[in-house]
């Protein structure tokens, strides 16, 4: 029988069959028992046994680590100048630290896993409760969960202690939404609320294979009863209790496990997001390649010269320095190769291992400052900023395009019911008398009013057409009877709450849902009951929602509310006009408008709808589409009653923030799903558009609806293109100053027009129009995209992201509909808003309010960028001047790969002597005060376009490093022309030579950093002077002992002896000074130049700050000379 029922359907691999309580039904025996995984959550990566090999493998997959491993192996295998320890130790250090960190994190995960896996759960077996460990749950087990417990796996909700078969859960730990959600038990099993009863249930569940979407689930349950036909019921997300959610306000529930362990939706959601890489990292890689080339060419030069030099046998093997037998016997080619490798090893320090460690540490530690910032703490939600990834800190300082959502981001998303219109009559302000809905005071009487019955219908619609729940505080207090003062409304949409509250003001109070009956108290204080038959849920595609209710008298009513664009086509056309006027005017005022419509259904119609809906709900495949189809058919031929206007207030300081972002050279695009008029007025309110801004519109209005709309669109595009791009070059001559006259343009485009451009019907020449559109967009100072579907938002971001020069994009939003653009942009920012936590969860950074963007970008972003850019440049610089003397020394030691410095110095240079000062700098530096940065947005442009990591500054640092390397080496070289440097005539050897160079080196690079430091906290003092002191101390110590484990005691008393020579002291001081002199000179010269450039106050109009005013660049430096150059920032 059952097989006949599903005869039409193929058995798909995409579904799983779960036998409830493992009581097999004869019919299902035919199915091969599917194997499911156990309920163990394994979020850990490693076990004790595989930790070492697996972790090492993962670490050496990183290109840098692999490179250092190769160098190390070369040192072990080939006879190289430096012992393998010199590169092995840092590598070992890095690998160990990372392994410990990852091991610790994994241990934490193990512990968390164990906590979950070993927690006790109660399973109903043979009508008895059995206590088990959570990990022992198998698919098909019936699990009992009590109040405030979390669900141990994904359960199909069978029965609960409450009679109506509902329970409340909170998914705070899953998606951060703390409101209670109602879930429904399968209708036919709600009665089975004891262990015995539930154990008697014989049923199978068919559902889809696990998938990560938390809000999607399709399945059906087939219940077998003795001597009856099996009943099939559809299952949806409302029947599924997710692992990780918590049961609330319900004593206990029974559920059957369908997904366990790693197949639960929670576990599936833990799989990481795609990695975003910052632009700085790309720069680092580019520089690495340059340095790799330097390294290779140095090694090649040395190898070549070595063999040229050795071609003279007197040089190759003088009598005093004979080769070993082995050396003589090696083939020349092999010898050359090992020589090349040896040189590579000798110079490999030019690519620093420690830079990666320092960069990682800087990012990790630095990101704490964002979450610690109390200015980004919001008193209302009691939360501060959240950093989900520390990889993108510096990207915050490079943003060129800001894509922002409107609702909840620019606005508060705390809705307030402002007014409504019923049949074209406007109602504003609340009515004091319960029975005097129409008795208005003041100006209201001028509006006229609608019929009483229509008013009531409208208000009932507001009271019924929603998914608002009542959180009854009185339950806690044990008080009943005054629900109106004890309840709070909970809904996923703030609009609905505003509407319900609005209706309450007019005398219709929603009292809650009880046993499928919605209760409302009307103006006469009577309680009306409506049986809730169906909710056609809201979705962003339809942009409306409906309910079907049955009145006490048996009348069947459908109420629908939604955006005007989605309601108007579905109502009687003659009703539209009078309401439309109000809707348009409200939209102009920046209110969010919703239209309300209704229709009466006959029993026959209802039966049909009911059947269709149930069928669609029952469908295992394409349920969404089928549902949409039914909804579409159902919500038709309605009657328009009226419209509502809800105000969404602007968030505090959002206008100032947008102004600041503009001034900082960023382009702000608003992407919203809202109506054009509403969005436009919000844009004016938050000063995205100025009164002087000329608006270009590409909307349904301007393009029209006709057949020729595509042609019309193309005409418009060309026209705008002409206006913006082709006409501008006239001004080019006087460009620098002419911007004051140039016009600001703003573009408005809506979703349907956008899809017309991006997905045109005919393919010919379409990409050309896409290009034109993009050019227009980039020329406009502000762009507003309204009526956007979530995916379109992401499309826009992707389009801009992929333009020439790949500008850094930032998306900010608060709702689930912004997730796609948050994930798409270089930097995704979530607002910890009222629409749940999905955006914040998927973002890279989350802030409580839009205004916090200002400090996040202008201060934090700017500082992080400057810090890390300086860190990177400094690292390359200090290793260049570290290795260059060693390279030069080869010319004086017969290209024999003799290291200039002792092995200890080679190893410790990057780890100990010069690492902490730059780390402290990169964490604490504020070259400009945070307050100045926040208050003067134009400073942001100083570092735009990755200014500090361009080739010019890189070359500057490289030349500086090369210059200093030359000074170090040749300074000491000339010093050593002396027969003796000591006053007792004794002579120094090669190790003293190296130590002098090294001392000068350590002091110079540290003092260079000191020169660059603009913000000396005690920590900077401590690490800078401490590092130098440590170097001196270490050198004494290292040379002060005969180390038994060393083969050679080369450094014995070398440092101490060096310091007994006055000449050496004088030389060291002189060389340090010479090395730093050009830098100091440059700063002074710049300083003087800047002063000369300052020619009186010169205010920039805000929007001119855009870097690209027209085809030719207005170089930012020119534009911001005025304010920015006051601050002596070293771009170099």
């Amino acid at each position, binding site marked *: 029988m059952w097989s006949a029922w599903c005869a039409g359907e193929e058995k798909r691999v995409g579904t799983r069959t779960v036998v409830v309580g493992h009581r097999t039904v004869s019919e299902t025996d035919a199915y091969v028992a599917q194997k499911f995984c156990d309920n163990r959550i394994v979020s850990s990566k490693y076990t004790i046994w595989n930790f070492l090999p697996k972790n090492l493998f993962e670490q050496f997959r990183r290109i840098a680590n692999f490179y250092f491993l190769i160098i190390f192996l070369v040192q072990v295998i080939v006879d190289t100048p430096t012992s393998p320890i010199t590169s092995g130790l840092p590598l070992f250090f890095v690998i160990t630290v990372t392994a410990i960190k990852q091991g610790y994190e994994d241990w934490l995960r193990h512990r968390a896993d164990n906590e979950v896996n070993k927690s006790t759960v109660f399973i109903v077996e043979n009508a008895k409760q059995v206590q088990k460990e959570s990990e022992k749950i198998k698919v098909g087990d019936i699990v009992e969960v009590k109040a405030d417990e979390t669900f141990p796996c994904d359960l199909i909700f069978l029965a609960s202690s409450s009679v109506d078969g509902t329970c409340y859960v909170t998914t705070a730990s899953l998606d951060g939404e703390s409101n209670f959600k109602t879930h429904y038990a399968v209708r036919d099993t709600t009665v089975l609320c004891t262990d015995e009863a539930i154990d008697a249930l014989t049923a199978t569940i068919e559902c889809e294979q696990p998938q990560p979407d938390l809000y999607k689930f399709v399945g059906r349950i087939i219940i077998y009863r003795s001597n009856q036909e099996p009943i099939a019921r559809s299952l949806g997300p409302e029947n599924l209790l997710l692992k990780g959610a918590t049961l609330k306000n319900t004593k206990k529930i029974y559920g059957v496990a369908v997904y366990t362990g790693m197949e639960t939706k929670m576990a599936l959601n833990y799989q990481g997001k795609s990695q975003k890489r910052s632009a700085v990292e790309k720069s680092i890689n580019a520089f690495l390649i340059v340095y790799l080339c330097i390294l290779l060419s140095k090694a090649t030069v040395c190898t070549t010269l070595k063999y040229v030099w050795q071609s003279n046998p007197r040089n190759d093997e003088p*009598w*005093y*320095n*004979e*080769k*070993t037998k082995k050396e003589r016997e090696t083939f020349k080619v092999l010898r050359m190769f090992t020589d090349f490798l040896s040189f590579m090893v000798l110079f490999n320090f030019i690519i620093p291992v420690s830079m990666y460690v320092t960069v990682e540490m800087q990012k990790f530690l630095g990101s*704490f400052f964002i*979450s610690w910032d*109390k200015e980004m*703490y919001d008193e209302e939600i009691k939360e501060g900023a959240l950093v989900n990834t520390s990889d993108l800190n510096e990207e915050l300082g490079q943003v060129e395009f800001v894509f922002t959502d409107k609702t909840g981001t620019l606005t508060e998303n705390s809705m307030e019911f402002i007014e409504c219109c019923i049949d074209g009559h406007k109602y504003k302000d609340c009515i004091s008398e319960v029975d005097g809905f129409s008795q208005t005071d003041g100006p209201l009487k001028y509006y006229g009013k609608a019929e009483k019955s229509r008013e009531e219908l409208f208000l009932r619609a507001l009271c019924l057409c929603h998914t608002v729940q009542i959180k009854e505080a009185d339950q806690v207090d044990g008080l009943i009877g005054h629900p109106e003062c004890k309840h709070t409304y909970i809904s996923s949409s703030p609009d609905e709450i505003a509407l319900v509250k609005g209706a309450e003001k007019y005398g219709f109070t929603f009292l809650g849902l009880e046993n499928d009956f919605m209760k409302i108290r009307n103006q006469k204080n009577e309680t009306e009951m409506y049986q809730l038959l169906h909710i056609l849920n809201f979705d962003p595609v339809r942009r409306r929602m409906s309910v079907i209710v049955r009145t006490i008298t048996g009348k069947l009513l459908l109420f629908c509310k939604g955006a005007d664009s989605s309601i108007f086509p579905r109502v009687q056309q003659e009703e539209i006009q009078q309401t439309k006027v109000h809707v348009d005017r409200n939209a102009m005022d920046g209110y969010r408008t919703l239209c309300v419509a209704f229709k009466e259904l006959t029993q026959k119609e209802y039966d049909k709808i009911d059947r269709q809906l149930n069928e669609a709900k029952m469908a295992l495949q394409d349920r969404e589409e089928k549902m949409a189809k039914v909804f579409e058919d159902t919500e038709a031929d309605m009657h328009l009653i009226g419209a509502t206007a809800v105000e969404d207030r602007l968030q505090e300081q959002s206008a100032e923030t947008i102004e600041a972002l503009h001034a900082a050279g960023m382009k702000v695009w608003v992407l919203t799903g809202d109506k054009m008029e509403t969005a436009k007025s919000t844009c004016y309110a938050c000063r995205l558009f100025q009164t002087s801004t000329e608006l270009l519109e590409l909307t349904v209005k301007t393009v029209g609806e006709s057949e020729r709309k595509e042609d019309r669109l193309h005409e418009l595009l060309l026209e705008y293109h002409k206006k913006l791009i082709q006409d501008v070059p006239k001004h080019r001559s006087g460009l620098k100053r002419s911007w004051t006259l140039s016009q600001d343009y703003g573009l408005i485009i809506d979703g349907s027009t956008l899809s017309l451009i991006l997905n045109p019907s005919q393919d010919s020449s379409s990409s050309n129009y896409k290009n034109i559109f993009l050019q227009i967009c980039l020329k406009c100072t502000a762009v507003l995209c309204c009526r956007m579907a979530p995916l379109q938002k992401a499309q826009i971001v992707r389009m801009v992201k992929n333009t020439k020069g790949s500008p850094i994009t930032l998306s900010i939003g608060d709702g689930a509909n912004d997730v796609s653009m948050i994930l798409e942009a270089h930097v995704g920012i979530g607002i910890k808003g009222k629409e749940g936590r999905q955006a914040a969860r998927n973002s890279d950074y989350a802030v409580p309010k839009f205004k916090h963007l200002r400090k996040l970008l202008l201060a934090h972003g700017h500082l992080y960028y400057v810090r890390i850019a300086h860190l990177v440049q400094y690292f390359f610089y200090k290793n260049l001047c570290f290795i260059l003397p060693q390279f030069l020394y080869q010319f*004086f*030691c*017969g290209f*024999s790969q*003799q290291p200039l410095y002792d092995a200890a110095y080679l190893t410790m240079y990057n780890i100990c002597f010069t690492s902490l000062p730059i780390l402290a700098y990169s964490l*604490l530096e504020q070259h*400009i*005060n*945070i307050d100045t940065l926040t208050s003067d947005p134009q400073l942001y442009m100083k570092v735009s376009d990755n200014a500090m990591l361009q080739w010019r500054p890189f070359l500057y640092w490289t030349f500086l490093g090369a210059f200093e390397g030359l000074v170090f080496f040749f300074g000491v070289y000339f*010093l*050593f*022309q002396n*027969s*003796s*440097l*000591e006053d007792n*005539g*004794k*002579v*120094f*050897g*090669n190790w003293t*030579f*190296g130590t002098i160079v090294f001392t000068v080196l350590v002091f110079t690079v540290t003092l260079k950093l000191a*020169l660059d430091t*603009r*913000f*000396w*906290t*005690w920590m*900077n003092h401590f690490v800078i002077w401490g590092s130098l002191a440590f170097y001196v101390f270490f050198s004494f110590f290292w040379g002060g002992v*005969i180390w038994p484990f060393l*083969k*050679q005691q080369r450094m014995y*008393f070398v440092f101490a002896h060096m310091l007994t020579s006055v*000449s050496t002291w*004088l*030389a060291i001081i*002189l060389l340090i*000074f010479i090395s730093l*002199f050009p830098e100091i*000179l440059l*700063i*002074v*010269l710049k*300083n003087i130049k800047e*002063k*000369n450039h300052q020619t009186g106050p010169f205010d920039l109009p805000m929007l001119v700050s855009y870097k690209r005013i027209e085809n030719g660049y207005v170089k930012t430096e020119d534009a911001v000379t005025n304010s920015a150059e006051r*601050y*002596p920032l070293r771009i170099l």
Partner: protein
Amino acid sequence: KPDNTAFKQQRLPAWQPILTAGTVLPAFFVIGLIFIPIGIGIFVTSNNIREYESNVFMYYGLSNFYQNHRRYVKSRDDSQLNGDNSSLLNPSKECEPYRTNEDKPIAPCGAIANSMFNDTLELYRIDNDTRTPITLIKKGIAWWTDKNVKFRNPTGDGNNLTALFQGTTKPVNWPKPVYMLDSELDNNGFINEDFIVWMRTAALPTFRKLYRLIERKNNLQPTLQAGKYSLEITYNYPVYSFDGRKRMILSTISWMGGKNPFLGIAYITVGSICFFLGVVLLIIHHKYGNRNTSADIPN
């Protein structure tokens, strides 16, 4: 709620120096004014090293001799030289090919020891056809720490070096074994100062090493009076094969070491440049900088 500490809010009290013309230019002057006298002092001192009035130091110099060649530098066994008995009989592999000779371990092993400079230099003053030898002191030419700590003879019964070096053989190029380098016990074996000086490898292929000291006898006469001298060299050390040259240098030493004009000139040059730039920039600064005096740094 985030802690309101100065560190977490990035508001630690900080010194915020700014290098401006106003602060740097005076520093240039000061540095110039310090460096120039130092340079002149060094230069004068360096140039005065000539009159052989105080102690005179006798150096030998070699050129084109790569004591800093890697193969050469590492060809030694410091633990053998430190008196370790096991290393004495089993020298380090690094000493190859100067590790053993005819199956006997070489002491001291390695290329450096093997190529020790072994010319003998003697200085005579010729006074009316009489040759008076000048006393050349051979002790006090090595670093104190080398002589007393780093270099040790092998230990054993008694002080008989011959017995202590039993079982080893001399370096191939040496005419006599290490325990016959000198007649004095505290300058023989590994702690022979000529040997220690040689073992400190030079930094550059042209180098000098301290050979002997000539002490000033009394304050009335210069150490080496003006007159005729003859230098007698026992020529053992071949340098022709590697295009090398040998030199003998006599020098007095000042507080800053031997004669070397480099440091003095460098100081004078740098000091002058500093001073000069200070003046030039100050002029520029005052001429143009005054145009806008309100350009204060807001930090």
